[in-house]
Each structure stands twice: as structure tokens, then as C-alpha cells.
């Protein structure tokens, strides 16, 4: 099944013509209405009328996550505040969150692209979809919620957590589609085992997953233990939220909704565009977004593109499952975490610097485990154990309150944190989330 047959199966030449006309309109609009973009265009010497072909995309400046922070909260808005009907936010690189906004038309676009991904995964109006992604500022929960309703499926808005109840409702409501992060799927399977529930005997048939990297091994495990077809999806709030791309039932890449989101692959070092098939950083330009359009947004995700038509009939190019990051961003339980954010929090707790390391682990069947190891300096050390414990608790509290992440702080002896080339290694990720990469 294809939700929007006309758009999703457009011959490439027609698709590209549509993309070019949308791009030209978008570029003219942001140049006109967003001072940030006007300045950025001038800095690289590009005027809107210079965009005459899709190839000219390379003449436009990049947008980065830090630009959201620098223009916090509404500096990147391309419409008057009155036209905004929804505001979401995700964690930023430091302190301030990344804010995104939607007009009524953007909400329609969002529903549409999520609906396409769901239908490509095999979801129909007859399905009952349990959304176990967080509702709130995070785009995951509400994005899939609206997309599911749009295709006429019955939505069970459970949000994340409350695992036993999730399992009860899967059984009682005869849920057929389960939407969650891959690590939560495995956690659910584990809990079901403990409760003596065999999820393979339920009506579950499709898993909509995303928001964090996962391996083929995890996919097989989710398939075998939950008795459903796990589908990979991709999105990020800076672009729209979920709905940027998703797999069809052939599992051979994630179809990008290219009539809304133009995708390029660039070499993260030279910043030059790379041809189809080559691995590099995904860069996305939104051509229909009204409230918060992004021009050449550097996603930081490493993948490659394949424009060949798919067996499912779609002509939309496919991206590979994301195989890594260009920066040090971690995704822990679906939440983006930058080491710099943790550093900012530690700075607020006296003595808790400069030596720390972030350790992420995932035990079998368990959720990601985030630990921050802090070397105990003489400034923070006292002979009183209660004071040390209080310091540790304060750091844990600050991280929970300001970053929304549950991290355990572990106090360690000085020099016990590995230093390479005089520079402290900040992150130890033992999860092995990405498929091994071929040596460069």
C-alpha cells in the first residue's frame, strides 16, 4: 500500500522539477523573512535568484544545530508568531534546548509524512497503534500519534514507561502496531517474559521504531521475541520530527519524503557534496516547511543515498540505516545527549571538573545505562562521606532536571580515567550500536 501514490511514485524527472520549484520558493521566502538566513546567504555570496538547478543547492550555506541555540528561542521563525500552532523542543548542545515550531500547514505536512511511513510499514485503518514513545516536547509521541490517526488507525496514546501496563494493553486492546525505540522494544520483551506473557501469541504484527540507532541483531531479537515486523524510521525535530524517512516492507533502505525534504550527502571534512552511493553526512533542506524551514541542515548522521526505484513501487530515494555520527552526540534512551551538556551541568557543582568521562552501556534486555565518572579533586574532597554523597546526588539531580536524563554519577580516583594524547577521552560507548564500518 502507498498512502500518496501520486507523490511517492513520481518519475524522478518530475520529482526533481517539483523539488526545484519548491526549493526556489523556499529560498526566496527565508531570504525575505529570516535575518539569519539573509546574512548567511550574503556571507557565501549567494542570492535567491542564483538557484537555477538542484545542483545549485551546493551554493547555499549550511545550517547547524548551534544555529538553533544562537537564535533561541524564535530567531529562526519564518512566519509571525501568531501563525504558529505548535512548539516542540529537543535537547540542545549546551543548556538551551533546540526549539522548533509548526504552522497549521506544517501540521498537515507532518501528519502526511508520518502517515506515508506508517502505510509503507504496512499499517492500515484497521490497525490499533500503541504509541510508547514519549509525549510532550519530544516529537516522537505526538508525531506518530497524528500520523496514525490520519490514516484512520485506532491510537492508544500510552507514552513511554509503565511497562507492565503497556503489556496489559497490548493484550486487552488487541494492539497490532507498537511504536517505540528499539531498546524499549527489547525491554518490553524482557518484561513480558518475566510476567509469563508470550508476545508472539498477541495480535502484534508491526513495530515502528526509530529515534535511536540499532543493529541488525536487535532487529532480529525484536522480531523473534515480539512476533512482529520491526520497521526502521528516521526523523529529527529540526527537520520535522518523525516522518523524514522510513522503510517499506522490503527492508532495503528508508524512503525519504523527498517532495518535502531534499537530501544530500556531503563529505563532513571538505563539506563538498558526494555522489549517490557514497557514504557521508546527511544534509537536509526542507522545501515545504513554513514556520521553521531549514536550509542544508547538517544532521550529523552518516549514511548514503540510493535513488533507484524500489520493488514497492516508490521512486523516493532510500537512505541506508544510519551508520554513525560525525560528532560526539550520544543517543541514550531516545534522548540526544552531548558531552558538552553534561560538562555544563558538572560546572554548576563545585569541584566537579575538569576530569570526567561518560560511559554508556546496554546490558542484554535492559535500557541504556548512562554513567558519568567524575574524578574527585581536592577542591571537592572532604573527609565527610555524607558531603561527597550529597555532591554526587546534586550532580545527578541537575542532570535529571536540566537535561532530562537519568545518569548515575560515579566518583573515581584521580588519573583513573584514560587519557589519550594528553586529551581526556570523554565518551565510552559499549553498546556497539552501529554496524562495523569498512576501514577508510
Amino acid at each position, binding site marked *: 500500500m502507498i498512502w500518496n501514490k501520486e507523490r511517492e511514485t513520481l518519475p524522478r524527472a518530475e520529482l526533481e522539477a517539483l523539488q526545484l520549484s519548491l526549493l526556489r520558493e523556499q529560498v526566496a521566502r527565508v531570504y525575505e523573512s529570516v535575518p539569519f538566513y539573509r546574512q548567511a546567504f550574503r556571507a557565501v555570496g549567494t542570492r535567491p535568484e542564483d538557484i537555477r538547478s538542484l545542483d545549485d543547492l551546493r551554493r547555499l550555506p549550511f545550517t547547524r544545530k548551534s544555529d538553533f541555540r544562537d537564535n533561541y528561542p524564535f530567531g529562526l521563525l519564518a512566519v509571525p508568531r501568531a501563525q504558529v500552532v505548535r512548539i516542540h523542543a529537543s535537547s540542545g548542545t549546551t543548556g538551551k534546548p533546540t526549539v522548533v515550531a509548526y504552522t497549521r500547514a506544517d501540521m498537515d505536512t507532518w501528519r502526511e509524512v508520518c502517515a506515508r511511513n506508517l502505510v509503507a510499514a504496512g499499517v492500515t485503518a484497521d490497525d490499533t497503534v500503541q504509541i510508547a514513545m514519549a509525549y510532550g516536547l519530544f516529537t516522537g509521541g505526538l508525531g506518530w500519534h497524528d500520523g496514525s490517526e490520519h490514516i484512520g488507525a485506532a491510537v492508544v496514546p500510552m507514552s513511554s514507561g509503565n511497562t507492565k501496563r503497556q503489556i496489559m494493553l497490548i493484550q486487552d486492546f488487541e494492539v497490532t502496531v507498537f511504536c517505540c525505540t528499539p531498546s524499549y522494544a527489547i525491554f518490553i520483551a524482557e518484561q513480558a517474559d518475566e510476567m509469563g506473557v508470550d508476545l508472539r501469541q498477541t495480535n502484534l504484527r508491526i513495530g515502528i521504531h526509530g529515534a535511536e540507532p540499532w543493529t541488525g541483531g536487535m532487529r532480529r531479537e525484536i522480531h523473534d521475541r515480539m512476533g512482529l515486523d520491526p520497521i526502521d524510521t528516521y526523523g529529527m525535530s529540526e527537520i520535522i520530527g518523525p516522518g523524514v524517512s522510513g522503510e517499506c516492507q522490503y527492508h532495503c533502505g528508508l524512503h525519504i519524503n523527498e517532495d518535502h525534504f531534499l537530501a544530500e550527502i556531503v563529505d563532513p571534512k571538505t563539506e563538498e557534496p558526494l555522489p549517490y552511493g557514497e557514504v557521508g553526512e546527511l544534509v537536509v533542506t526542507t522545501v515545504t516547511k513554513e514556520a521553521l524551514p531549514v536550509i542544508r541542515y547538517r544532521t550529523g548522521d552518516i549514511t548514503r543515498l540510493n535513488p533507484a526505484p524500489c520493488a514497492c513501487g516508490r521512486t523516493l530515494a532510500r537512505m541506508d540505516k544510519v551508520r554513525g555520527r560525525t560528532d560526539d552526540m550520544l543517543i541514550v534512551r531516545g534522548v540526544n545527549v552531548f558531552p558538552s551538556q553534561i560538562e555544563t551541568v558538572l560546572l554548576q557543582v563545585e569541584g566537579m571538573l575538569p576530569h570526567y568521562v561518560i560511559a554508556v552501556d546496554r546490558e542484554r534486555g535492559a535500557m541504556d545505562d548512562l554513567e558519568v565518572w567524575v574524578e574527585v579533586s581536592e577542591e571537592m*574532597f572532604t573527609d565527610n562521606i555524607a558531603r561527597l554523597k550529597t555532591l554526587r546526588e546534586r550532580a545527578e539531580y541537575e542532570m535529571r532536571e536540566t537535561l532530562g536524563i537519568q545518569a548515575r554519577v560515579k566518583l*573515581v*580516583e584521580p588519573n*583513573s580515567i584514560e587519557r589519550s594524547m594528553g586529551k581526556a577521552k570523554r565518551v565510552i560507548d559499549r553498546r556497539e550500536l552501529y554496524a562495523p564500518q569498512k576501514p577508510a
Partner: protein
Amino acid sequence: MRITQVSAFMENRPGRMLHVFNLLSEANINLVAHNIVDAADFGILHMLVDQPALAMQVLRDAGLTCRSTLVLEVTVPDEAGAFVHRVLRPLAEANVNIEYSYAYSSQCEGEARSVIKVDDLERAEQVLKGLIDG
């Protein structure tokens, strides 16, 4: 009397105590008393040594986080109730809080020695006057 105690931060894992005490031993520093307070994954080692300044230097040079603290050494007769009546009750009545305390042997027969760390050193000294000079 006021004495200087050396405290060191230690991770709670095999060999850490050995490491610290070995450093002192190699520097020919004698350990008079010690005690460990632990918080599951880490602990604080409190030490009374015959050369506190040298001990601090040795431990710091080895990269350990340490600190010197003034504590009170109290000596009471080695008999039932002595510590209660002569130390704990007077301090409690004077509203002085004891953060931690540990006992150790005395070279003199009939005597018991303890170290107490209090929240108000001067007040404790006044209250225990006589005992702490003993």
C-alpha cells in the same frame, strides 16, 4: 588534644587499601590508627600517622586525592561507661555533633583512646577540657 588526620579518597575495589598503605610503608611512615567509611562504590580512608605532612606529600605525589583534617584525640579510663559519661554525654548536652569517631589502642595500660570528628572543634575542646589534655 587536636591532632591532624589524613583522609584519602578511594574507589571501592580490590587492592586500593593495599596501594595506599604500601605508599606509607615505603616512606617509612607509621600508621597509628585507621578507619574506612564507605558509600558502596567509593570510600574515605581516615588515617592517623606519625608524620602527617610527609604522608600528605607522599599520597599527593602518587596522584591520590587527600586532605588533612583536625580531629580530637580523647583518652578515657579503660572501663565500662567511661566514654559515655566523659565524652558522649557532655558533647550531646553541649549540642556538639559527632560526624564520625573511631577507637584505637593505647600504649598505656588502663587507657582507651578514640578519635572524634566534631562539627564545632572549639566548643568540644571546652566541654572536654581535662580529657583531651590527658
